[in-house]
């Protein structure tokens, strides 16, 4: 009899959610994290003494409210800050689109440039929320078992699903029409201003190797607003102390429930016997047995690198090897001497408290994506920046007065690099890292002239860094591309979408599972439900 019911590989936020729920369910649970701290991509880094930045993810507003409540995260130290402004999208010409949490306020602001758009905005917001409610229900459910029952069951389950019916006749037709659409088409159905279209469409392409004209990106936008207060503007919520504070609260909740968490413990393989996962082996050679193994790392790494190929078998191995993980996201973190001046903000600091999105237009976004298709980073990347220290002074408490930190998500920067750093081997991100940083700074300069002179520290994380430091295959922050081909009942793979992955008693609880990536805790919570139902049934029944 092994000491552990469940061993969880990786200590990212989803793994911690799973661990907390499993421990609360009475399972003896062990979490093994390779790095020195838990959290994975929900991480905070000390960039300079006393100055901390969100390392990768910078907002946490998509976290499921039920998880916060179930696990008592506020009791474990989680404190959230939601600014009034959600998105500030400045252009180089000094104009801007501003999306507020207040829909009416947003609409009024839009009226200056287009009455049509101002009138259309509330309806668009309602539509996103209404479809988002259905998608949230979809996200909370375990995808149907397509193998043994019939496809008809899946369709009728969907069809008869209360929430699908709740959409009404038009709504249910709309959702099926809209999900496979290109986000550019979706926003064009409602709005005429290119700047507004781009500011909204950004959420459809964020973190994906897709452009606004790619099919399926409308689904990304709608999924982003599912289960949170996003609406048309999208959520913008900061964790005090950075995203790492969320991870710390999750870890505390898991520990309190009885889980053990070990850091600096790299799992090098998942052991299997007779088609059944039996435990893990650590880098030092230590073997740990458990009744079930849960992988919080991405599905490709899990099946291709961690499990013996013989146990996986050639067919599943081939499929796992083809899981798409085309990372296109880079991260630039900055320490600034003081708050930069954005041309379009006119010194109004309140505008800078949300997500600052530099996406000059739909075509500009598409062109930025074009570069990535040919293995080049965009010279005009799309940028989403936040200045979390405006809402949370604790991030800069050790610094000179007026110091701010800025967290910048930059897209598109393809993991598989060709062309840049002439004369060097392809894919040489080492040589290209700072060049990319300079490119991102140029974009920021275009909307906030003089920002470069304020930088005291700069950290550039390429997709290769994301892979090396965080174990994200292909540098993909969502563990697997969020596309129609890796969605719902086929995320990560058809026949393996019910959190059970390839072998008996091997589970997947990370972003590579339904409902996908982002700081939601969704896959972790769903996986815990399935694991508990399996292990309880087998051990007690």
């Amino acid at each position, binding site marked *: 009899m092994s000491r552990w019911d469940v061993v969880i590989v990786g200590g990212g936020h989803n793994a911690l959610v799973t661990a907390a729920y499993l421990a609360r369910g009475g399972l003896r649970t062990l979490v093994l994290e390779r790095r020195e701290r838990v959290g994975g991509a929900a991480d905070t880094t000390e960039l300079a003494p006393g100055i901390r930045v969100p390392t990768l993810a910078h907002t946490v507003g998509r976290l499921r409210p039920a998880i916060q409540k179930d696990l008592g995260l506020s009791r474990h130290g989680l404190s959230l800050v939601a600014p009034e402004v959600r998105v500030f999208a400045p252009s180089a010409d000094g104009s801007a689109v501003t999306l507020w949490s207040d829909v009416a306020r947003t609409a009024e602001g839009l009226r200056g440039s287009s009455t049509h758009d101002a009138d259309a905005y509330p309806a668009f917001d309602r539509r996103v929320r209404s479809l988002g409610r259905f998608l949230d229900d979809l996200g909370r459910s375990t995808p149907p078992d*397509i*193998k043994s029952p*019939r*496809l*008809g069951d899946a*369709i*009728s389950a969907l*069809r008869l699903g209360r929430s699908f019916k709740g959409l009404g*006749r*038009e709504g*249910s*037709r*709309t959702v*099926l*029409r*809209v*999900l*496979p*659409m290109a986000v550019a*088409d979706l926003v064009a*159905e409602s709005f005429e201003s290119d700047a507004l279209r781009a500011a909204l469409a950004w959420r459809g392409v964020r973190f994906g190797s*897709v452009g606004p*004209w*790619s*099919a*399926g990106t409308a689904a990304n936008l709608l999924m982003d607003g599912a289960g949170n207060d996003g609406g048309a503007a999208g959520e913008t919520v900061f964790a005090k102390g950075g995203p790492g504070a969320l991870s710390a609260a999750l870890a505390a909740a898991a520990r309190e429930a009885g889980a053990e968490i070990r850091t600096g413990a790299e799992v090098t393989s998942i052991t299997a016997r007779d088609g059944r996962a039996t435990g893990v082996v650590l880098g030092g050679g230590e073997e740990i047995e458990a009744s079930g193994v849960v992988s919080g790392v991405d599905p490709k790494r899990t099946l291709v690198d961690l499990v013996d190929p013989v146990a996986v078998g050639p*067919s599943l191995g081939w*499929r796992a090897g*083809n899981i*798409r993980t085309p990372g296109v996201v880079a991260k630039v973190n900055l320490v600034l001497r003081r708050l930069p001046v954005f041309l379009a903000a006119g010194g109004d600091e309140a505008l800078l408290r949300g997500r600052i999105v530099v996406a000059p237009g739909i*075509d500009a976004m*598409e*062109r930025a994506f*074009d570069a990535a*298709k*040919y293995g080049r980073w965009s010279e005009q990347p799309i940028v989403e920046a936040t200045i979390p220290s405006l809402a949370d002074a604790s991030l800069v408490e050790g610094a000179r007065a007026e110091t701010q930190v800025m967290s910048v998500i930059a897209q598109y920067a393809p993991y598989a690099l060709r062309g840049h750093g002439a004369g060097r081997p392809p894919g040489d991100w080492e040589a290209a890292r700072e060049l990319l940083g300079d490119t991102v700074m140029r974009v920021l300069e275009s909307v906030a002239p003089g920002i470069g002179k304020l930088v005291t520290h700069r950290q550039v994380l390429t997709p290769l860094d994301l892979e090396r430091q965080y174990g994200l295959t292909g540098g993909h922050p969502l563990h697997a591309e969020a*596309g*129609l*081909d890796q*969605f719902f009942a*086929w995320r990560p*793979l*058809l*026949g393996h979408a019910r959190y059970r992955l390839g072998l008996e008693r091997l589970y997947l609880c990370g972003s590579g599972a339904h409902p996908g990536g982002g700081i939601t805790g969704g896959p972790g919570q769903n996986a815990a439900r399935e694991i508990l139902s399996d292990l309880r049934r087998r051990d007690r029944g």
Partner: protein
Amino acid sequence: MPQRYDAIVIGGGHNGLVSAAYLARAGLRTVVLERRHVLGGAAVTEEVFPGFRFSVFSYVVSLLRPEIIRELDLPSHGLDILPLDGTFTPVPEGMGRPAPKDGNGNPIGTGDYLWRVNDHGRTVRELRRWSKMDAEAYEEYGPLMVDMARFIKPILAIVPPDPASIDPRPLLPLGGLARSFQKLTERQQAVFVQLMTMSSYEFLDQWFETDPLKATMGASGIIGTFQGIKSPGTAYVLLHHYMGEIDGAFRAWGIPKGGTGGISNAIASAARANGAEIRTEAPVTRIQTRGGRATGVVLESGEELEADAVLSSVDVRRTFIDLMEPGSIDREFETEVRRFKFRGSSGKVNMALDALPSFTALPGEGEHLRGAMSISPSVDEMERAYDDAKYGRFSAKPYIDIVIPTLVDPSMAPPGKHVMSCFVQYAPYQLDPALGGWDRQREAFGDAVVARIAEFAPDLPSKILHRQVLTPLDIERTTGLTEGNIFQGELSLEQLFFSRPVPGWARFRTPVRDLWLCGSSTHPGGGIMGANGRIAALELLRAKRTRAS
């Protein structure tokens, strides 16, 4: 007194003719009204230059439903499809492998080629020259795709259900599909899901490494769409083109004897034999309604015709926006119709040739000229061609699908001369306004196409006697296809099955009672398939029976 019919079919394209044939066969007094002097819509043969006859628009056939050929007995009405063997992809020097050598070790030409033929063994040997792995994967890929096409084919004959309806009966045909899905292996199921959702490039990239192979195979995923081979959703179109069936052989393409007009004429002859009346040069300007029902049509001449049912084989936008009295249709429906995307993306260049062109990669005349010649040397070039179009320009280096019909049907040109058909992508209907419109760009577009082919066959320009350049605008003007979309609306995922052409209205009926759609705007989409026209007619006949009983 207006003339009275049981059914009026608007448009004498292949789908309109198929509908008319089925209705007449069931005893309905049916008339077809065609705007032009020639029948066939986009499936027409015309003598564009004296002595040279062209399949002006659509130029090959593979998707025509075998049950239509059988039920209408088309061969006895003159249908004769000549097989088209192989796809030849020239690859420029430096892009492919060293030039292939002849028996004495001398290079055959400059550059390389990839030549796939219906003879499986020969194709696999050819692929092995490029990549042993690909040759092996091809052995697996082909049968898999045939299985997929077999599985999905019944869907071509289904009337799509309305997923929002509470009536479960229309869902029944899906039950059979669900059962056959269960019989697939898990891997086949997964591949099917990929086909429905992936880009054709990413789908193929799982199997193959040879760049021109992926580019050429992927090309069938983008034909007629405003998508690139890396755009999600294009793998489905790959499958759509795999469903073709001639004499039971999947993936076989052919050229109708006498051009694609030969198909239309055969269907028209079958329709007439069953008693249908067919009128050409009879443009319809208005669909008449009374109390929310279609009652007949008005012709440009002012003549009025009445009928119990009106079937429109023209596209959904032309039907409801151009032919209906403004304000006479449901506003919500009208919004959806206006949303339906056309976005024509292709053009056509037809050439009369003095002699055959010679490809540098495989000089001289040969079997390779008798099939399709595909200008698709690399995935990146294909994708860049799409990038040009996204921003309103025709491709500088377009993808071109070339056939020389005179090599299989010499009757199309004077002795010793040839006709060459070049399908070109991309040519966006909406040009960047800076270019001044298609009427100013037509010849520049034609020049770009000739120059592109000349990269591989430099002697082509000297062989051209005449050239007909058809831009998407020309296609729209001549055939009436909105925005020059050859499929009467994009085959994108949100415009398929129960969302084609409008969610909730995929069952060939429309909000206007007794007005039916039977063209390619409906399920299962475009191509010379005829399925739309057939299912619409059968559905109308069924409704008539139900109403009578």
